C-alpha cells in the first residue's frame, strides 16, 4: 500500500518553475531513492511533502490522507520525519535539547529517553557532546545530530536529504547500515543522495529527476544497470 504519493506536483520559486509535475509514490516498508543532478529539484520535492514550499498545482497524499494544504507541523506530527538539506540543527540549543525537540510531539517521557539511547547507540559521538551547543559541533557531528533528531519522533516515513554529506567514509558506511536497520524495523525511507550508487544499492526502487521532471522510475537494481543512469549519475 502506498504511504506517500505525489500527484503531478508543481512548485515555483518566484518565477522559477522548479517542479514541473512530479509524481511519485513510496510504499509502506520501502526504501525509495530520488537521484538527479544539482538543481534538478530533489530538495524541492522533499520540501513539497512537508509543505515547506507552496505546492501550486497537484496533490500530496500521506497514509491515504491528502496533506497538500496541511501546515508543516501537522504533516510532521502525522509521522513524517525530515533530515533537511544543510542539516539545519538548532545552533544555540545543546545537543540534548536538539534531540528533545525532535521528540516534541511525544508524550511518553520514558519512551523519549529510550529513543535517545537508541540514537546514541547509532552515534556515540553525540553522547560525548551532549551538553555542547550544537552550533559548535563539527560539520559531520551536526549531520549526525540532524539524523538523530529526525529519529527522535519515531516517524513512519523518513525523508533524508543527502544524509551522508560531509561524513567520514566510515560513518557513511554506518549511516547506510543504520538506514537498512531502520527499514528492517519497519520505517519507510525516501532518500535523496548524491552518492547514487550506494543509495540505489540500499533502495528498493528509484526515481531519476531532471529539470523538475521525473525522467525514469524503476527498481533500484534496474537503474543501476541502466546505461544512461550509469553514464549520468554513477561514477
Amino acid at each position: 500500500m502506498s504511504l506517500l504519493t505525489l500527484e503531478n506536483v508543481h512548485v515555483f520559486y518566484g518565477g522559477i518553475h522548479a517542479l514541473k509535475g512530479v509524481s511519485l509514490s513510496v510504499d509502506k516498508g520501502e526504501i525509495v531513492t530520488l537521484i538527479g543532478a544539482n538543481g534538478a529539484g530533489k530538495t524541492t520535492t522533499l520540501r513539497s511533502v512537508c509543505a515547506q514550499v507552496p505546492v501550486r498545482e497537484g496533490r500530496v497524499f500521506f497514509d491515504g490522507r491528502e496533506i497538500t494544504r496541511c501546515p508543516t507541523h501537522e504533516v510532521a506530527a502525522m509521522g513524517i520525519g525530515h533530515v533537511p538539506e544543510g542539516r539545519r540543527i538548532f545552533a544555540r540549543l545543546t545537543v540534548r535539547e536538539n534531540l528533545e525537540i525532535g521528540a516534541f510531539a511525544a508524550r511518553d517521557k520514558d519512551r523519549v529517553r529510550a529513543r535517545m539511547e537508541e540514537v546514541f547507540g547509532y552515534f556515540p559521538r553525540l553522547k560525548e557532546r551532549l551538553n555542547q551547543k550544537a552550533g559548535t559541533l563539527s560539520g559531520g557531528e551536526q549531520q549526525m545530530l540532524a539524523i538523530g533528531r529526525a529519529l527522535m519522533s519515531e516517524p513512519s516515513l523518513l525523508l533524508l536529504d543527502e544524509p551522508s554529506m560531509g561524513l567520514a567514509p566510515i560513518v557513511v558506511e554506518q549511516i547506510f547500515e543504520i538506514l537498512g536497520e531502520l527499514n528492517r524495523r519497519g520505517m519507510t525511507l525516501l532518500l535523496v543522495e548524491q552518492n547514487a550508487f550506494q543509495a540505489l544499492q540500499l533502495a528498493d526502487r528509484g526515481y531519476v529527476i531532471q529539470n523538475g521532471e521525473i525522467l525514469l522510475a524503476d527498481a533500484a537494481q534496474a537503474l543501476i544497470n541502466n546505461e544512461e543512469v550509469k553514464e549520468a549519475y554513477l561514477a
Partner: protein
Amino acid sequence: MCVLAQILQNLPQVLVDGITLGAVYATVALGYTMVYGILELINFAHGEIFMTGAFIGTAVLMGLNAAGVLAAIPKGAALLVALAAAMVITGLLGVGIERVAYRPLRKAPRLIPLISAIGVSFVLQDVVRFIAEWRTGNYIVTGISLFDSEISFGPVTVKTNALIVLGAAIVMMAGLDLFVQRTKWGTAMRAVAQDKDTAALMSIDVNKVIALTFFVGSALGGATGVLFAQQYGTIDPYIGFILGLKAFTAAVLGGIGNIRGAMFGGFVLGILEMFASAELSVLTGGVLRAEYKDVFAFLILIAVLLFKPEGLFGQVVKEKV
C-alpha cells in the same frame, strides 16, 4: 565636607530607591527579552503594552471603587483582580498585535517589523489617550494607591508598594526562567527563535509558539504596568516610551534574549540612574549634575558592551566557521 561621607550617608536610601526603579525596568525588560529571544524583533510596542496594562489596572480599581466593592474586599485581592484583568487583556492585545502587525512580515527583511512596531506604538498611545480622555476628560490619570504605607529600616524608608513590585518581579523572573529553560514549550520557543521552518519540521506549531510568547511577554508587561501605576500613582499614555527604552537598554545590558540578564540589567540600570542623579553633582563638585544621569548610564552601558559585547549574561556565541 568629605565627599565620601556625604555619599555614604545617602547610599542606603539611594540603593533602595534604585532597586525599586530597577524592578520596574527589569520586569519590562523581561517582556522585551522574551519577544526578542523568539523573533529577534525589538518589539517597540512593548512599552505601550506596559502602558495599556497600567491603564487597565487603574480602570479596574476605579471601577471597583465606583461600584463600592473596593472597600469591602482585602487590598491584596483587589490588586490581584486588577493584575489578572490587565494580564489577560494585554496578553490578548499582544497576541492581536502579533497577528496583525508582525505575522504578515515574518518573511520580510528583519528591520521591517520594527516599523510596524513603531506604528503600533503610535496607535496604542493615541487609542488609550482617546479612551482615557473620553472617560475622564483628561488623559493624565491619577489612580488609587492600595499600599501607600511606608516601612522604615533605620535611615531607610520603603513604600510597601515597592516591596510588592520587587517581590512580583522576582517571582515573574523565576517563573519565566523555569518555563523557558525547563519546559518543552520553552525549548520550543528557543527552537522557533532560531529556525522557524525547521522547528515546524519537528511538529512544532510555530504560530502557536509565537502567539504564546507574545501572550506571556505582553501579560508580564501589562502586570508591570499595574504595579507601576500603584508605585507612582499617576500614569499617562506616554509612559511607555521612555520606560520601554530604558527597559530595552537594560535587556541589552544583561544580554538580550537572556532572562536572568534582563532582570539583572534592569536592577543595574535602576541603581546606576538613581546613584547618578543623587550623587553625580556631589562627586564632581557640581560640574556634572543629575541631568547627566542618562549620559552616565549610557556610558557605562557602552563600556560594558565594549568589554563584553554580548552583554553581562549573554553567551559568547562564537560563530563556528
